């Protein structure tokens, strides 16, 4: 046993993981620089985003103080509450932009799907870690039910982006728990087999259009293909070094839609080039790597699974968003994490990172 492990430094006592915090702050700073350019040099916009960042850092700090054991105990009740709220949205929710996602609780509007996004990996980790790992097949059925209820309720809102993220966070828990490869492969094959059914029977026409647009955006350059064409032109014309900060013609002349929200990556590609994009990807990789290290060093399987799932969900955001903006994936409403303008996803993500920090700093140093 080594003595210095017994005396946590100041950061650990505050339950802060410095390497992770530095990664997150770098990403946020990068985001502010890009938003300033993408938002048309609007200082007020920048102010609002900074307020959100400070707020979500405070929340992260607060969450980090909570012992993961507490989360484990409360996971299921909160999950059930989330499901009830989702049902509430289903029946009493407000319709906004054609989708029913908001619940009006008098003083504020609230999206139960965000709560589910947070609590779901915790619930899944709680459930799976109750049993010896790798989980037996019969426990997987329970996990499947836990997974399907919120996923379907959210997909029905309809909010495909969020339901994919929720489902992914649960599937990551199962995968990390050591579910047998046979099942993993079976699920993958099953999903592939489902695709034609999805395409022909379940997808709306506009969703099919989005997919077809992906393969041939030039078909309808001023309609369905507009977003993706403009975004690819922005990225492609950035070249190696980019056109320079505030110099992107695509973004500054407003050819690029939603440039400070979902399509902000195109601004990075245009103004900072391949180098800027690579730097961003490196920062992301660093955060993911740190998250997986935290997960591997965790002491209970609950903490391990939870930390792993949070980290990998973060990666899904990145991959889906950049894939969509650079023309690899169909358009799904997922923001670029910690960079896109907007508060909800930042709050959710930072709460997740708060949990990571809590897991890492609440380890008990057992003598071996």
């Amino acid at each position, binding site marked *: 046993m080594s003595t210095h492990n017994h005396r946590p430094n100041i950061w650990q006592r505050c339950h802060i993981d410095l390497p992770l915090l530095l990664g997150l702050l770098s990403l946020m700073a990068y985001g502010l620089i890009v938003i300033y350019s993408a938002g048309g040099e609007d200082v007020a916009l920048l102010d609002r985003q900074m307020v959100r960042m400070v707020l979500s850092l405070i929340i992260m700090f607060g969450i980090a103080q909570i012992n993961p054991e507490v989360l484990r105990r409360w996971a299921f009740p909160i999950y059930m509450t989330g499901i009830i709220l989702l049902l509430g949205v289903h029946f009493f929710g407000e319709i906004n932009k054609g989708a029913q996602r908001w619940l009006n609780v008098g003083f504020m509007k609230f999206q139960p799907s965000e709560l589910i996004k947070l609590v779901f990996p915790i619930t899944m980790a709680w459930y799976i870690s109750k049993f010896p790992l790798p989980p037996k097949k019969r426990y997987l059925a329970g996990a499947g039910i836990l997974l399907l209820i919120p996923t379907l309720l959210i997909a029905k809102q309809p909010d495909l982006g969020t339901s994919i993220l929720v489902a992914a966070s649960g599937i990551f828990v199962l995968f990390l728990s050591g579910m047998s490869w046979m099942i993993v492969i079976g699920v993958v094959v099953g999903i592939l087999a489902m695709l034609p059914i999805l395409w022909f029977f379940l997808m709306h026409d506009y969703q099919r259009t989005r997919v077809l647009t992906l393969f041939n955006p030039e078909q*309808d350059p001023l309609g369905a293909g507009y977003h993706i064409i403009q975004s690819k032109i922005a990225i*492609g014309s950035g070249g190696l070094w980019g056109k320079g900060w505030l110099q992107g013609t695509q973004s500054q002349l407003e050819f690029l839609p939603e440039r400070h929200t979902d399509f902000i990556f195109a601004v990075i590609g245009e103004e900072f080039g391949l180098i800027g994009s690579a730097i961003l990807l490196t920062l992301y990789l660093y955060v993911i790597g740190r998250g997986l290290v935290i*997960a*591997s060093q965790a002491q209970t399987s609950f903490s391990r699974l939870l930390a792993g799932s949070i980290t990998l969900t973060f990666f899904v955001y990145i991959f889906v968003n950049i894939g969509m903006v650079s023309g690899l994936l169909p358009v799904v409403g997922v923001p670029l994490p910690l960079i896109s303008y907007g508060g909800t996803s930042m709050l959710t993500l930072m709460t997740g990172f708060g949990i990571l920090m809590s897991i890492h700093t609440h380890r008990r140093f057992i003598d071996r």
Partner: protein
Amino acid sequence: MAPNKRVTMNDHAAEASLFKRRAIFTFFCVVSLLSLLLINLYQLQIISFQDYTTRSNDNRIRVVPIAPSRGLIYDRNGVLLAENQPFYSLEMLPEKVKNIPEMLNELKSIIPLSAEQIEDVIQSLKGHRRFKPLTIKNRLTEDQVAQFSVNQYRFPGVSVEAGLKRYYPYTSLFTHALGYVGRINRRDQIKLERENEWKQYAATNDIGKQGIERFYESTLHGKPGHLEEEVNNRGRTIRILKSDAPEPGKDIYLTLDLKLQQKAVQLLDGRRGSIVAIDPRDGGILAMVSSPSYDPNMFVHGISSKAYNKLLNSTSRPLINRATQGQYAPASTIKPFLALMGLENKTITPQTRVWDPGYWQIPGVERKYRDWKRWGHGWVNVHSAIVESCDIYFYNLAYKSGVNNIARFMAPFGFGETTGVDINEESTGILPSKDWKRARYNQPWYIGDTISVGIGQGYWTATPLQIANAAAILANKGKRFVPHFLKSVNTNTTDEDPNNELTPLKLKDPSNWKIVSEAMREAAHKSRFKNAPYTAAMKTGTAQVFSVAEDTRYNAKTIDEHLRDNALVIAYAPYENPQIVLSVVLENVGWGSKNAGPVARAMLDEYMLRDNGKTVK
């Protein structure tokens, strides 16, 4: 926990190492997927760099859609019923306004804006696309336009837009038939997207919401044009490169007749009720009034929530189209049809006589069904039963026929299903049968139910349009049309055959038509049409109240006049070769022949005796 600690520790180690292996595997996946993104970026930014740079430089051309002008709507004589008027509105691009509430506050000093209007703007901002202009205020006066133009520099992102707006010169006269247009909302957008029509609406603000405006939306709307303009590096338009003009929507001509419609409105005089007039020769609707009505122009410019709630909560329910959605017991107007059924099925013959002592009893049952005439009609045959509207005769006939025979015979007259008229607001009414009652109430059919059906009451309901349509089939001796408003598109002709004719209804014995209509002729000329200079046929009815609200979503409460009867009448003229068929329903006014009869006379007088603009050949 303590006893098997060792085991737990072992499991712990195994679980941890299992997790580590999985974590390393996923990390490897993450790295390869991120590399995939990077490779794709390399492909875009390095390999295709030149290509995209060229396209980016060329990207100075912006395409702006131009809205087509909406087709006009005329009546059968070419009178304009729906036109487009130029108007000015104040619009903003939410994307370009920094602080919207502040801007609106400042704007108040130049353009009068009520607190309610500001609230409305802020409300509609939610769920509004930031790149699409949002209207702040409609119908600016020339003064206001000038006032704003001088101060425009203070309001970046706000501008005065000139455009065309729908205007209905006859205001509330045609509301329920024409419907109205209103701002495209989210639901319209979703519908258009689903139909792959959304692109056509890139520059359009309004869409048909009700009535003919909605039904013929695709005809009236037209195709948008495009303006290709070059923008400078600040996004301002430098010059227009190319433009293709929009293709205006097609004009449509309706079968409606302004004068007859005016007469109908005048006769109803704001009372609750409906008048429908059909030309039996082609099924064209000459007049359709649902009263009370409202001014559709309110909806064109975005009705205030206060005004809308007033309409919505009004006890007389102006928003309902009574002519096609009001479900009324057809009452005695149904007797000629039942007589026809009896004759056709040989349940009765023209000579069959029934003794009417003022009441009727189901054989072996004590209960007495009363005639409207307390002391009875004495001996009646089918002719006098129709002329005098004898209830006893039809109690007996219904009893002998049974409800399923009635339902089977009445279905081809269009009862119990929508007529297919070219507006979407239509109800089916109810043509009761044993199966229907079982499905609807899960109850068996009772004989007593059949008896009230015999005088067009009980479960039987129909819309005024259905009643008029059935009367037209009767007047036509079986020739059937889908009742419709559309006469022609683009030019006012009668040549176009819109294919509205249905297979005719054939009787085994065609002379039965005559027996029934002869009785209706006598009913007309013995009473209201005694001195009419033309021949007519008529049948009145008085229905115990069956509230309009039965199957509608407007749940305002009726509290007044609930106990008075509805007055109904069907009528047509001339008797020999009918040119107009009419159904009138007046809610809660009392006796049918006294109240609805004169209305029918006045309507037929208007149409038959007009000196000019007579549309008949």
